[in-house]
Every structure is written in structure tokens, then in C-alpha cells.
């Protein structure tokens, strides 16, 4: 079993390792997969194990009870038969003692005759004797010469005199056969007690115990209270040997013990103590035999259990692998989609800005046009060339060209930064530069733009293009939120040693709590009809990518503040791409 498990485990590990070789899996996916596997194993295996264990226990209990029941019944019956047998033999002796007077029985001839009849009728009797009040054997019939032997100081004699009845333990008697003796006391006409004592072999014991319809492997025997075998046992010695195990002294009735015998065999011991006599009937069966159906079932259940565990394990491993792979693919797709979206948004920003730039360039161009035209006019019409006037015109043309160049360079500076490039940036400068795109609009709309810059703010390492896109998005929003003549406040400050902050506050229409909650979600827009709902979600994504945070605070009709926190140094390169 262990070998099989090991094989499976190796196989599983191979699957995992091969996969890891094939593709360097980022740690978080490995962790995710591990967690899912553990969780799923826990929720499937724990109930399975508990259920299997309870079932097994229940089955074991039931099956054992069911198997023990007949054995217990047999043992009880056997003990009862044995008891009846002893009773019967004793009662025969009793009958003789009561039917005949001491005088008649003391006659050797009569005793002999009775003994013959007894043997014929009952069998097993070996001898018969009469002991008088003094303990002297006055009559005897049997294989020994025991006449006139005095028993007065023997224990059995005294016990018989006290209790009226005596049955001995088994002892080796005539021809080295196990025997038991039984004696009954009676009183003669003079009131003197006398005892009739009979000895019988125990062959009948075996006959009584063995034919009980027991399995041939059953070891059944009789033990007395001192633990001495009273009949032969198959495994625990011959008659009169000490039985090697202790039998708990208990009430009458049948009891069952499961235990390991001195030879290490696992056995079931069923024993039944006789009510009247100092004997205990013991039946011993190998546990393996008794609980065979249980063991078969247990084995089948174990196979089933192991198979289920392996199946669950493999399915969980496989499905988790697939799941995590899908999640990873989805993540990758999302990253790509986000990158594309970002790119698209940037392009659309560029497009929007380009239109503005074209318009804005028209103004300096118009000046150049007029100045150049004026120069031409002057040369054409005015013969006295006023050199100073000409020079002033030229320098104004050059100024206007500068203006054009600033505008085009700003757009180009924004447009050409597409990938992520980290450089040292002064965010004040980035803010001012980006605002340049919208300066004309601010001017035309009479917007009051206020700068609250921390001029000592340290430079940060970040991506200019991305930052500009973010700032542009937010400025565009602020511009859209305020009415003409509104106010926009740009502020920067150093938040702590690692972070700088910039905030864009407007006094525009603001937004509701609910809008604020959804504002960074993709496709959420309040600009019905012309908003894509992507601007702020892209902003959010870029800020996250730059390792920063974005916060919004807004009150309806009072305005909105977006605050961006940026780290002075970008997060690890791994996180960015």
C-alpha cells in the first residue's frame, strides 16, 4: 500500500515539476494553486476520512456483535449442558444415597451391585464408596483397594460434611485418566452422617463440549477457579495444566474478551461460569476467523478509500492546475488588453491634442503670416526702408516660430513616449508642461488656474509619458467639470520620505457618493454618449503600475479633488512588466 502511494506521489510530483520546468510560474500563481489544492483536499478528504472512520467503526461493531452472538449462545448452551450433566450425575448419587440406608450400602455386595447398575445406566463411573462419620471408608467398589482408608482430615470430606454435597476438581486417577469425584452426605437412623462418594472419568466432558456445532478451529475446554485446565485444550495444554491466561472472575453468564494470548495470537475468548460448580467453560477462537467478514469488508473499504483519495487527489490536482492556468492566461490577456487599451487611449489623447495643437499653431502662424506680409508690404510700398521696423518684424516672426516649436515639441514629447521608461522627473515641471496642452483653453474659458507647488519637492524616478497621460486625463476631467471662469488648483507636496503627492482640485459640479465609488471601474461613464468610461480606469491602472495610489474626494456642486501619490523610486521591475 505504501509503495503504491509513493508511486502515485512521485507521479504527481513529476507532473508538477515538469510543468514548473516548462514555464517559470510566478510565485503568486504557485501560491494560489497550493492554496486551492490544500483547501479542496481539506474540504473533500476530511469529511471522507471522518465518514469512512465512522462507518468502519459502526460496521466493525455490528459485524463483531453479529459474529459473536452465535458463539456466545453456543458457549452458554455448552455451559448449561455441562452443568446439567454434573447435576444429573450428582443427582444419581444423591438418589442412591437417599434410596438406600447406610446399613444396606455398607454391605459390599449391595454396593457392588448398585455400582454395576450405575455404570450400565450412566457410564463413566470408576468407583463408589461409603465413608462413615469418622471418615473411614466402610465399603468400596472400584479398581483400588481403598477399604478402611480414613479421610477425616481431607478437605473434601469436611466440605461434604459441611455443605452436604461435594464435587472435586479434575485429578489424575485410575489408569492416568482425568477424573472427578463427587460426594453426597446423608444421615443414618442414629443421626450420624455418612458419605457416598463416587469417582468418574471426564471423557463425557469432551463429548459434552465438542459436539456443539462449533467450528473445528474452536478450542473449547473447562477451567476451574484456580485456572487449572479441567479438560484438554488444543492450544493451551492438557488437562491439569495451568491455563496460561487469567480468566476474569465474573458473574455467571457468558462473557466475551478480545485479547492476545501468550503466544501472540489474537483471540476471542468466550467463557461462561457455571452457576453451582467451580468450573468455567472457555471457548477460544482466532480473531481472524471470527472477524473474517469484517476483515474482508475492511480491506474492500480500504481499497475503495485509497482509490477515492487518489482519484480526488488527481482530479483536484488536475482541475486546479487547469484553473490556475486559465486564471493566469486570463491575467495575461488582461494585461495585454490593458496595455492595448492604454495605447489606444494614448493615441486618442494624441489625436485630441493634435487637433488642439493644429488650431493653436494657427495663431502664431497667423502672426508670422501678417508679419511677413507686413515686411513685404514695407519693402514694396515704402522706399525708405526703416531698418528698425523691419528688424522688429523679423524678430517677432522668430518669436512666433518659437511658439510653434514649443507647441509641436510638447505634443511630440508626449506622443513618442509609449513604452515604460523611468527617468528622474520633477513633477512640478511635468504638471506645468502637461497643463501647457490646455493653457489656451483655460485662457479662453477664463479658468483660474492656481499653482500651489512645493518648489523644493524632490525628483522622483517615474515614467514621464505615463504620468503625462494620467495628468492629462485628470486635467481634462477637471476642465470638463468646471464652468467657464471656474477654478482649478494644482498642488504638489512631499508626503513622506518615500512618497510625493500631487493633487488636482476643481470647483466644478462634483459627483455623488455612488459615482465616486464606481469612478475607477472600466466602462463607467457619466459622459453619456461620448465617454468610453475608460479614462479613469486607465489612469488607475497606470498609477498602480507606477507603484502609486490615486484617491478621489468629491462633493456635489462643490468640486472634486484627485490626489495621486507616487513613490520616489519605482517598485521592483518584476511588478511592472
Amino acid at each position: 500500500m505504501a509503495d503504491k502511494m509513493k508511486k502515485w506521489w512521485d507521479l504527481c510530483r513529476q507532473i508538477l515539476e515538469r510543468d514548473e520546468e516548462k514555464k517559470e510560474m510566478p510565485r503568486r500563481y504557485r501560491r494560489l494553486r497550493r492554496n486551492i489544492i490544500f483547501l479542496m483536499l481539506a474540504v473533500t478528504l476530511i469529511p471522507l476520512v471522518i465518514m469512512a472512520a465512522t462507518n468502519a467503526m459502526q460496521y466493525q461493531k455490528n459485524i463483531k456483535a453479529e459474529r459473536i452472538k452465535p458463539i456466545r449462545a453456543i458457549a452458554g448452551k455448552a455451559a448449561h449442558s455441562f452443568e446439567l450433566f454434573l447435576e444429573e450425575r450428582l443427582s444419581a448419587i444423591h438418589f442412591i444415597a437417599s434410596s438406600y440406608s447406610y446399613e444396606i450400602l455398607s454391605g459390599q455386595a449391595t454396593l457392588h451391585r448398585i455400582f454395576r447398575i450405575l455404570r450400565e445406566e450412566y457410564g463413566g463411573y470408576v468407583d463408589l464408596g461409603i465413608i462413615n462419620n469418622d471418615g473411614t471408608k466402610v465399603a468400596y467398589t472400584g479398581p483400588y483397594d481403598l477399604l478402611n482408608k480414613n479421610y477425616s482430615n481431607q478437605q473434601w470430606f469436611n466440605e461434604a460434611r459441611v455443605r452436604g454435597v461435594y464435587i472435586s476438581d479434575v485429578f489424575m486417577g485410575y489408569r492416568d485418566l482425568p477424573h472427578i469425584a463427587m460426594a453426597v452426605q446423608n444421615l443414618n437412623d442414629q443421626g450420624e452422617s455418612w458419605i457416598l462418594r463416587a469417582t468418574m472419568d471426564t471423557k463425557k466432558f469432551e463429548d459434552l463440549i465438542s459436539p456443539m456445532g462449533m467450528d473445528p478451529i474452536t478450542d473449547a475446554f473447562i477451567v476451574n477457579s484456580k485456572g487449572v485446565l479441567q479438560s484438554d485444550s488444543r492450544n493451551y495444554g492438557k488437562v491439569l495444566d495451568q491455563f496460561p491466561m487469567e480468566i476474569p472472575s465474573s458473574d455467571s453468564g457468558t462473557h466475551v474478551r478480545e485479547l492476545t494470548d501468550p503466544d501472540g495470537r489474537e483471540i476471542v475468548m468466550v467463557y461462561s461460569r457455571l452457576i453451582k460448580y467451580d468450573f468455567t467453560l472457555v471457548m477460544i477462537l482466532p480473531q481472524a476467523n471470527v472477524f473474517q467478514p469484517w476483515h474482508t469488508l475492511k480491506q474492500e473499504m480500504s481499497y475503495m478509500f485509497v482509490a477515492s483519495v487518489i482519484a480526488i487527489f488527481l482530479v483536484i490536482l488536475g482541475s486546479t492546475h487547469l484553473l490556475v492556468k486559465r486564471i493566469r492566461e486570463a491575467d495575461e490577456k488582461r494585461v495585454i488588453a490593458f496595455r492595448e487599451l492604454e495605447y489606444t487611449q494614448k493615441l486618442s489623447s494624441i489625436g485630441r491634442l493634435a487637433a488642439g495643437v493644429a488650431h493653436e499653431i494657427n495663431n502664431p502662424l497667423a502672426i508670422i503670416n501678417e508679419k511677413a506680409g507686413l515686411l513685404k508690404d514695407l519693402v514694396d510700398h515704402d522706399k525708405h526702408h526703416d531698418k528698425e521696423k523691419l528688424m522688429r518684424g523679423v524678430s517677432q516672426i522668430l518669436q512666433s516660430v518659437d511658439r510653434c516649436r514649443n507647441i509641436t515639441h510638447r505634443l511630440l514629447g508626449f506622443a513618442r513616449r509609449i513604452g515604460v521608461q523611468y527617468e528622474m522627473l520633477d513633477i512640478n515641471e511635468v504638471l506645468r508642461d502637461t497643463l501647457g496642452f490646455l493653457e489656451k483653453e483655460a485662457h479662453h474659458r477664463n479658468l483660474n488656474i492656481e499653482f500651489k507647488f512645493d518648489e523644493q519637492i524632490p525628483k522622483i524616478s517615474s515614467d514621464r509619458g505615463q504620468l503625462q497621460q494620467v495628468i492629462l486625463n485628470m486635467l481634462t476631467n477637471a476642465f470638463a467639470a468646471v464652468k467657464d471662469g471656474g477654478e482649478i488648483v494644482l498642488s504638489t507636496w512631499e508626503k513622506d520620505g518615500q512618497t510625493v503627492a500631487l493633487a488636482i482640485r476643481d470647483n466644478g459640479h462634483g459627483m455623488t457618493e455612488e459615482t465616486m465609488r464606481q469612478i475607477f471601474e472600466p466602462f463607467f461613464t457619466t459622459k453619456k454618449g461620448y465617454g468610453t468610461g475608460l479614462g479613469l480606469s486607465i489612469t488607475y491602472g497606470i498609477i498602480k503600475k507606477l507603484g502609486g495610489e490615486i484617491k478621489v474626494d468629491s462633493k456635489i456642486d462643490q468640486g472634486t479633488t484627485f490626489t495621486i501619490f507616487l513613490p520616489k523610486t519605482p517598485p521592483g521591475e518584476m511588478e511592472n512588466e
Partner: protein
Amino acid sequence: MAGEVNGKTTIRILLVDDEEEFVTTLSERMEMRGFDASVAFDGQKAMEALKTRVPDVMVLDLRMPGIDGMEVLERVKKTNPEAQVIILTGHGSYKDEEQARRLGAFDYLQKPVGVDTLVKSIQKAYQQKIESAYAAEPSDESQSPQNRH
């Protein structure tokens, strides 16, 4: 009405633009071409200028701080409907043009504009003004400003 300079009818124009450099230079060139040009640097000043001296033709930028060109156009057409307005803007969109024409603009020109185009447009606008004035008051003076140059 057009004033007399050296015995000739001079067309009075008002140039409105917030690009001061542009508008002063243009004004100078227009003067050189015989127009009586004055300038205003935003909508508010244009409206004030209108109170003292109504030009024959107004050259108006659209995007200006304060009162923007579209609003100036609208107001002028209410107070002085005879004054012709030419829009000259760097930000012109089709929508703006449509709106301006609907509000009564005579022409719609994109910056930068050739000076000859502008002069022609101004002259046509003046012509138009004369014709509409003649239609309204046939007894009135009907001197053509054309071929003056």
C-alpha cells in the same frame, strides 16, 4: 457709413482678436491698403468700441476670453445689423462655421489667411452692406467702394 479720406470713401473696419501682435500688425497692413482700421483685443472691448464707432465690416476671432466671438457676433447682429461680420479664427470647426453663418456672419475665414483674400472678403462684405442699405433706403447714397484700390 464709410468716411471720407482724401476725397475717397474709406471702409471702416474693426479687427477683434486677443492675439495683440496679430491684430495690430493686421491693422497696420489694412491701413496700408487704405482701410480705416481699428482694433479691439477682446469681446468686451469690441462691444465698447461699437458704442463709439460702428464699423462697416468687423473681422472677428471666435475664441477669446470673456465675451467670445460668437457672442459678439450675436450681439452686433442685434444692435447693429447693418455691420458686416467676417469671422477669422484659428479654431474654426464646421460646427462653428455653421453657427456663425446662421447668426449672420458674412464670411468665415481660417487663420492664417492671405491678405488679399481678407481684403476681397472685406470689400465684398462692404458691397453687401451697401446693397442691403440701398434696398432698405433706395434714395440713399449708393457709391460703390469697389475699384478703389
